[in-house]
């Protein structure tokens, strides 16, 4: 099964906006090719993790090798590459795409093209893919295939006359999709006799097998016992097993040019397995790696602290375990005067941040406090050196700073034109610079440059709420630029709370400061002492709120029968105190930290 001639291999990925039916279609294709029996089919075979299932987001790339007897009488190997489905993982997506020659562009015929579709489709075009448009959900009465075809042609510039019309739900048109893959996608190319070059598409940690590496062989072969070298790091490992996913793991003798599959090589952590790296043979190594490798760099950082200080070691262990499986996520120990011992963690984006946080809480049963997400600023000192700032609390004294640069993104927003006004206002409010604005039918596509800082700050939630959920949004990093940034400190009874400090553009500082103070006033319950909450830039107070002291808080009647109940309540309250953070005399509930971050500016 490894000596499939190149002419009978097709490697493809599926591009779709969330909920347009990618997973359902994948399931149908697997079923149609007999990859799994009906009994083994559970919905959405490819979404492995609980979070993936719930959110409908794929975090890791996966492949499935399908065997398809085509109408031309030949049997083809169709490798489906399921790519991560979110802009945070744009680089990972680009590597998955680089492993294929073509894509199915799945568009929900009742919804039309969305921002995420656009971004991914452009990436696929960049990767040189042949693209087959597929209109899904044509079983729905609201389906408008003709309008959506026109949209694909207008917006993306792809001919859509030959779009395959399907219903992934009912199975209608699945055969046409399979035929289109064979007839319309080009076969892969490669040299069996050339030095081995395989693209490392993704990797994950498996408790039994160690690290499993997903590969696409370009030239040469991968086989058991071979000593392979990772070209970016130079690390060498002996291959223990080679296999494919059907989607079950099946070992094979070797993988040749054009093929996709996995290898294991006794590797203990994915940190050695960088997405996009080139794997070659250690003895007869290739001279040039495959193009496009980039080490992954976190763009958003935040502090994660255990709610219960006793959980610090457990947090360290859990982060270690997650990192085994996700090399794009970084962490280093950090201490905060307010929150104690924790970690500063770096992520590929906001979704990535949320996913990691959620997994820590769910899979590792940790209660966490997260500080406000921060982007990476570049501080140019008056002495001329440059440092990267991951934590607003570490901002050096302004007198030592010559200037600060902040990261920008290029955002593509797709929205029905009824809501365009709101969106443009939001972008302007967030210091956006319009790059492009085009209309397609009754939809608009706005392309903006925005400071990433403005986007981590509840941009996405606002975008959704002001467009009643209709706007879709996608972004790519777009360099650094000088900016007038200031650090805003939050003071509780005069003491700065490091974990609440944040950096904002001077023009936004006051508004943000005021908003946080108001929010904290709502969230911090009255206590024994009066509490002053202030926001400041340096020594200048820009906002202030006061929480009055409790004037009366005592149980009115307390008799013999109440003692046990009152004691238990007292014990619970004492336990609850552990979840409060003490600032001088003031206790701040952790919900205040969480909520202070999720704010409408």
């Amino acid at each position, binding site marked *: 099964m490894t000596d499939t001639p190149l002419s009978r291999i097709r490697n493809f990925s599926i591009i779709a906006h969330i909920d347009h039916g990618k997973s359902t279609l994948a399931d149908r294709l697997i079923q149609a090719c007999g990859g799994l029996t009906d009994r083994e089919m559970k919905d959405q075979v490819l979404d492995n993790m609980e979070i993936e299932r719930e959110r409908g987001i794929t975090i890791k790339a996966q492949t499935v090798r399908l065997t398809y007897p085509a109408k031309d009488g030949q049997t083809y190997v169709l490798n489906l590459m399921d790519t991560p489905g979110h802009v945070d993982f744009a680089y990972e997506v680009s590597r998955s795409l680089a492993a294929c020659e073509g894509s199915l562009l799945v568009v929900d015929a009742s919804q039309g093209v969305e921002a995420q579709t656009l971004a991914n489709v452009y990436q696929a075009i960049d990767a040189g893919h042949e693209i087959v448009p597929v209109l899904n959900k044509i079983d729905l009465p609201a389906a408008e295939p003709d309008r959506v075809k026109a949209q694909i042609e207008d917006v993306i510039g792809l001919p859509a006359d030959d779009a395959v019309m399907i219903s992934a739900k009912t199975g209608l048109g699945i055969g046409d999709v399979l035929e289109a893959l064979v007839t319309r996608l080009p076969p892969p190319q490669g040299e069996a006799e050339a030095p081995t070059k395989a693209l490392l598409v993704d990797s994950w940690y498996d408790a039994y097998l160690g690290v499993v590496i997903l590969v696409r062989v370009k030239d040469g072969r991968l086989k058991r016992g071979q000593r392979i070298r990772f070209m970016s790091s130079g690390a060498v490992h002996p291959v223990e097993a080679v296999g494919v996913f059907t989607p079950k793991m099946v070992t094979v003798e070797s993988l040749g040019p054009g093929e996709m599959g996995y290898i294991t090589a006794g590797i203990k952590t994915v940190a050695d397995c960088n997405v996009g790296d080139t794997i070659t043979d250690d003895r007869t190594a290739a001279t040039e790696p495959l193009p496009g490798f980039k080490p992954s760099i976190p763009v958003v950082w935040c502090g994660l602290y255990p709610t219960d200080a006793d959980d610090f070691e457990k947090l360290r262990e859990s982060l270690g375990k997650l990192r085994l499986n996700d090399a794009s996520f970084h962490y280093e120990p950090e201490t905060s005067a307010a929150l104690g011992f924790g970690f500063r963690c770096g992520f590929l984006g906001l979704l990535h941040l949320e996913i990691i946080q959620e997994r820590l809480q769910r899979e590792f049963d940790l209660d966490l406090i997260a500080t406000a997400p921060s982007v990476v600023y570049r501080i140019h000192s008056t002495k001329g050196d440059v440092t990267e700032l991951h934590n607003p609390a570490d901002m050096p004294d302004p007198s030592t700073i010559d200037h600060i640069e902040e990261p920008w993104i290029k955002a593509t927003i797709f929205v029905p034109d009824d809501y365009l006004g709101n969106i443009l206002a939001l972008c302007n409010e967030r210091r956006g610079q319009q790059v492009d604005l085009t209309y397609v039918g009754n939809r608009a596509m706005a392309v903006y440059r925005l400071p990433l800082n403005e986007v981590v700050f509840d941009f996405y939630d606002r975008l959704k709420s002001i467009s009643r959920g209709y706007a879709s949004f996608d972004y790519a990093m777009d360099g650094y630029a000088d900016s007038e940034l200031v650090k805003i400190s939050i003071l509780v009874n005069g003491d700065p709370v490091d974990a609440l400090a944040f950096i904002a553009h001077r023009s936004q500082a006051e508004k943000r400061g005021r908003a946080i103070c108001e929010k904290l006033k709502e969230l911090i319950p009255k206590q024994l002492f009066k509490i002053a909450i202030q926001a400041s830039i340096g020594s200048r107070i820009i906002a202030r709120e006061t929480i009055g002291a409790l004037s009366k808080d*005592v149980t009115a009647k*307390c008799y013999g029968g109440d003692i046990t109940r009152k004691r238990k309540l*007292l014990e619970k309250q004492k336990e609850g105190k552990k979840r409060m953070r003490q600032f001088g005399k003031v206790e701040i509930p952790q919900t205040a930290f969480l909520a202070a971050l999720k704010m409408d500016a």
Partner: protein
Amino acid sequence: MSNPSPEPVALYVHWPFCLARCPYCDFNAHVRERLDEPRYRSAILAELAFEAARIGPRPLGSLFFGGGTPSLMSPDTVGAIIAAAKAAFPGAEEPEITLEANPTSVELGRLAGFRDAGVNRISLGIQALDDTALAFLGRKHTAEQALAALAQARSLFRRASFDLIYARPGQSVTAWRDEVRRALGFGLDHLSLYQLTIEPGTPFERAHARGEIALPDEAEQAALYAATVEEAAKAGLSPYEVSNYARPGDESRHNLAYWSYADYAGIGPGAHGRIPLAGVPTATVRIRAPEAWMEAVERRGHGVREEEALPPEARAREMLLMGLRLTRGIDPARFAARAGMPLEDALEPRALAQAIGEGWLAWTRHGALAATAAGRLRLDALLPVLVR
């Protein structure tokens, strides 16, 4: 805990029945069409014998008939229980014997009978002296009946107390002062003034959640409380506990047993007790539902649901949370003896120093640790920080 001359024991008897359920009330109270009073009485007497046997012969310091509405008992039943209690816990001094009474006509007719049966202190559930307020509270009596009850209590009993509920929706400080003053005019020696509390599971809780009951805010509550203390003082009654006022010497001896963490036995459905069992301080709880309790007593001689030995930490917390409610505070020597650990070990030193610094706690000239007037008002916020 072996005392050479045994400390007196307090005895609580619960009568769980009422004419109607008041919408604010979360006590173990039940409304029943028909009642087998003799059967109930036998069960109480059986539990009394059960407790007497295991506690041993100690003098009876106080006996309290609480409810529910114990004034719905016949004076006969009350007399039988008093006699049995005195016999079980013999002592030289006459115990304080209190009975809670509601001011409906049925019960008013029995006050003299209760006195003749041996009750020497009456506690009247007046709640309000205003018909609108009484209706709001779902009470079955009128302001006029309440006034008559106060007058009658005054003439029948040397020691009489009454309960009022304040911080009712829309209540002004002026109106409340007037109400307290009128009640105090009868010259009773003791009063309990409770701030209306929304208790979980009550109809008031649901109404409150629906926004139908708007309670005075915290500042208004504090003002009402201050007015209460002032009015009581004018009548010669001083606050000896958060919500209780007495003419000096006429404090409720029974309730003092709770607040000073003395031994008390509790019998009847849902009653709680704190008694030494085989030398170990123990919390006792009775089955709550009246019928189930009664069946258990008939089957096995008692209706105990749960008994929990209390380690020193638990005792220390209980003693702190009760004792700091008292104006006189907690005596360290007594604390160490009752809780089984020194007072300073039971407190967070920093929180203690801070509370003293803020003027919420103080060492009294008798060497006790007490909450100040300001501290008593904030006790619920203070305790979780203060206790270890």
